[in-house]
């Protein structure tokens, strides 16, 4: 770990001011990702700006629709309004990490967590475009079992590891941010990027911006009765997703009125396609419909030496997730 300075800010203005003043500074949330990466020499911020005491960002309000960036993953998952109106988000959060980690992890930090690509996390591997632009991608020829099958580039095949982000994508959340020039809102679909030729950039958040809130559209609560977060992983708990599916249905009798669908573990960002959701609208809720949506969502998927299985696993999982969503809350 490099030597670094530590400072603590108490309000959003001060946070933005501090980060804008230092291009090598980073915000410190729960630290569960950033500190690990600093210890492993992947991240080298010159200053940590501790935002965990910033006023007003640790609350969930508006029936669960407005989430402060400092709300801890455990608190968010167990918040009564969130469980009632956005159970998909709650399930996704609870499927992630461990209770200890969730007690520390913040909403903002979870949005910003970096890939778990082995070659990114171990600096002894010389080739990683995300860590060292232009150095190559060791995952292409390496152990790429956990890597992307959609939206990847020749420069990077990493995935976004978050479960929360997948639920947020399905629910079409918005990320509220604040910078020196004021506030703006980024739709979740535009928040995380595909790697393209610049895999070192994970998100569209600017260096000098602070995430203040995540907002959920109130219409998303209509998925509450029929939603399911399915996570396929190497063990029963405490493992990142091989693939995951956030599935939500609004039903009118047997017919699908609206569908929400996003996948994790398959791309550099939560993978959602409006066409896949639209294809389900007006259809009977059955395996055939779910499977057709899966085909659309997975269209163009490409596997590598160790991860081709994800294509079939993803398709199966979409069908299974919707079947469980259909059964509803008690499932």
């Amino acid at each position, binding site marked *: 770990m490099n030597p670094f300075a530590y400072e603590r800010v108490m309000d959003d203005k001060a946070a933005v001011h501090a980060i804008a003043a230092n291009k090598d500074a980073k915000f410190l949330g729960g630290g569960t990702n950033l500190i690990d990466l600093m210890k492993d020499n992947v991240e080298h911020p010159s200053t940590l700006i501790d935002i965990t005491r910033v006023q007003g960002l640790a609350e969930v309000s508006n029936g669960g629709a407005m989430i402060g960036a400092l709300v801890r993953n455990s608190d968010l998952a167990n918040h009564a309004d969130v469980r009632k109106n956005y159970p998909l988000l709650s399930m996704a959060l609870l499927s992630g990490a461990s209770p200890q980690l969730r007690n520390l992890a913040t909403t903002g930090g979870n949005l910003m967590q970096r890939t778990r690509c*082995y*070659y990114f*996390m171990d600096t002894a*591997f010389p080739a990683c475009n995300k860590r060292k632009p232009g150095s190559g991608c060791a995952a292409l020829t*390496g*152990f790429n079992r956990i890597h992307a099958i959609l939206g990847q580039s020749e420069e990077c095949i990493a995935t976004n590891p978050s479960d929360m982000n997948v639920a947020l994508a399905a629910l079409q959340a918005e990320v509220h941010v604040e910078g020196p020039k004021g506030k703006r809102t980024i739709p979740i679909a535009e928040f995380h990027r595909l790697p393209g030729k610049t895999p070192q950039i994970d998100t569209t958040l600017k260096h000098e911006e602070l995430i203040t809130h995540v907002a959920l559209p109130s219409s998303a609560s209509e998925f509450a009765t029929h939603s399911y977060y399915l996570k396929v992983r190497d063990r*029963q708990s405490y493992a990142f997703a091989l693939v995951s599916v956030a599935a939500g249905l609004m039903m009118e009798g047997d017919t699908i009125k609206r569908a929400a669908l996003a996948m994790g573990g398959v791309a550099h960002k939560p993978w959602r396609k409006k066409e896949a959701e639209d294809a389900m609208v007006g259809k009977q809720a059955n395996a055939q419909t779910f499977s057709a949506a899966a085909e659309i969502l997975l269209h163009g998927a490409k596997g590598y030496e160790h991860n081709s299985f*994800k294509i079939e*696993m993803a398709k199966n999982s979409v069908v299974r997730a919707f079947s469980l969503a259909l059964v509803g809350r008690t499932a």
Partner: protein
Amino acid sequence: MMQDASTPTQHPQSLPTRYDARQKVMGKATYAAEFNPPETLYAWMIQSTIPKGTILSVDTSAAEHASGVVKVLTCFNAPKLPKPKIQPPATRFVSLLQTPEVHYNGEPIGLVIAKTLAEAQYASSLVTFKYQAEKPQLDFEHHLAEARMPKRANTPPKEDHGEKEEAWKRAVTVFEQTYSTPFQTHNPLEPHATVAFWVGEKLTVYNSTQYVSGDKQTLAKTFALPLENVHVICPYVGGGFGCKGSSWSHVPLAAMAAKVVGKPVKLVLDRQQMFGPVGYRPRTVQKIKLGVDGDGKFVAIKHDVIMSTARVEDFVEPSAKQTDMLYACKNISTSHKMVDMDIGVGTFQRAPGEASGTPALESALDELAYKLKMDPLELRLRNYAEIDPGKQKRFTAKHLREAYQQAAERFGWSKLNPEPGSMRDGNKLIGWGMATATYPANRSAAGAVLRLMPDGKIMVGSGTQDIGTGTYTVMAQTVVEELGVDVSRVDAKLGDTDLPKAPVSGGSQSTASVGPAVKAACAQLKLKLATLVVDDAASPHHGAQTGDLEIKDGFLVSTKSSAHEPIAEIAKRHGEIEVKGEAEPNEDVKKGMSAHSWGAVFAEVEVDESSGMVKVRRVVATYDIGRLINKTTGTNQLQGGIVWGIGFALHEESALDKVYGRISNENLAEYHVPVNRDVPEIDVTVLDIPDTKFTPQGGRGIGEIGITGVAGAIANAVFHATGKRIRHFPITPDKVLMTPKESAEA
């Protein structure tokens, strides 16, 4: 005195709690890294980032000027050691900064010594090496054809019994398949840790180790010291599983650093450093061929193993070892070959051989049973080995039949419908599988000391280790049993080379080796006390015959009269009384009986067909491990072994990168072991029939057998659930999903 009383002891009251439980729960158990001699400095190991080549130059200037740095050592300035390479027993191929050659990725190539750990780590990141890289060999599968015989002497010979090829002609059914097991890394919770300091030419080392005496020898040889100049101390070990049975590079490196800087030096490995330079279980590919006659009895068995090895040192994972003795057959042939790779050295990992061999052999038996349309348990019973078929020797004891029966009953095996895919629970397919567990019973010579204090306390000591398995408990319990004193009076000491020598805590031998030594010491104490009192006018035994005296309930009592005296009184009059005891393996065993432990494992799994995820629902196992010396620690070992077996079956794999030669998933988030949710109800029972041919106490080791058989039983259950044979461990969701069902005919 060497002794091995073969009179069976009566069944003891085993201590209800671990002797060391209180210390551990209170946080008062001091582990190696927690020793802080005054002025301790911190060392951090720099490791190579290429798999093969030569270090051309190193730039240490930035590191040397960094805050807190005291010294940077590399092959260009490290003290030259008297002998460049050290031979076993304890030490393996180690890297002590003596040469610029790089033999594997992650090899120790430098050491930074600083005032704090953070400063040492940071300064390490400032050291830059220039290499001349060479082309490494890192692809195991593609070099199987080049496999060669092992060079090292400790390897199991190629076994060939009986008439070989001829036998196969008599087989009515022949089955042949290939299985594989991955690299696995030990990952005890406590990483390797060493604190070393010198006083003149005397070296003291606190080390997390399974073998204090081995470390002592290694250090003495490395620094050309007389043995008595080295003192190794290790009161507690937070798990070893075999990787702490050898002294790896960091142990002498810590001592070297301490010598150079003239202060105590602490060197602790982090999790990432546990992957590579301190051993792992080699990868194996195992070809098994089974031939049976019309009754399902084996006429020939062949088990050929090819494993990975480090180019610099052979280590054999003897996966075919159990095949030489597990089932009755006149024609058994086994072999072990290896493929050279430019990777770190492999080593003993919990149940070396059986852990990786039984999953293959027991899967093969299951496949054969299906082919024969025979109950898998019936196939094993038909081929029950009454004597060791390889060695043609009698077993010291074997009650495997009872174990099969008991476990099968507890599991409900008789209700098995063998049809794959015949059981369901909602979305989940349910499957049952079984396998045999086995592990050799080992025992070595060991010594123990007893000191009876004037205040009535009894110190019992042995230079053994407690790697969490319960050695403290067994030592204390043996004193309680033999002398009839309350455990509160017993002060057990171990993990110190100043105590009488004991063997490595490996091969499940500590209890079987140290227990008898303590028992022998107790007998010596009786003798010594008796000799003292018969001439002691102050004793009620004055004038008695020494042979008429014995120790009972903390008293020296006469078998001829009612005379009795508390043993503490004798020490009060005569001062501290010290005796020593030694014990070595029974003549029976030495003369060549075959000693093994046995078990039967049954597993139920559920498989999600859509995702391929497997969950173990229950495991039922019954073991014949001789006498269960202590219920708490013994059952714990067996259950822990089964959990390990679940990890072997479903989770554990160190994924070697074929280009760079590093383990890519080198942390505990990505190297998966079972978590709570992966561990079901585990029903362990023990037959508890003493094997007094093996030790006077009747116990055989239990530290490793728990792993064996489990992965096979789970793989077989996965087949029963799905109709899919996953022959390449671990059975991860991708494999379950992508493996086609076996065709019905197979």
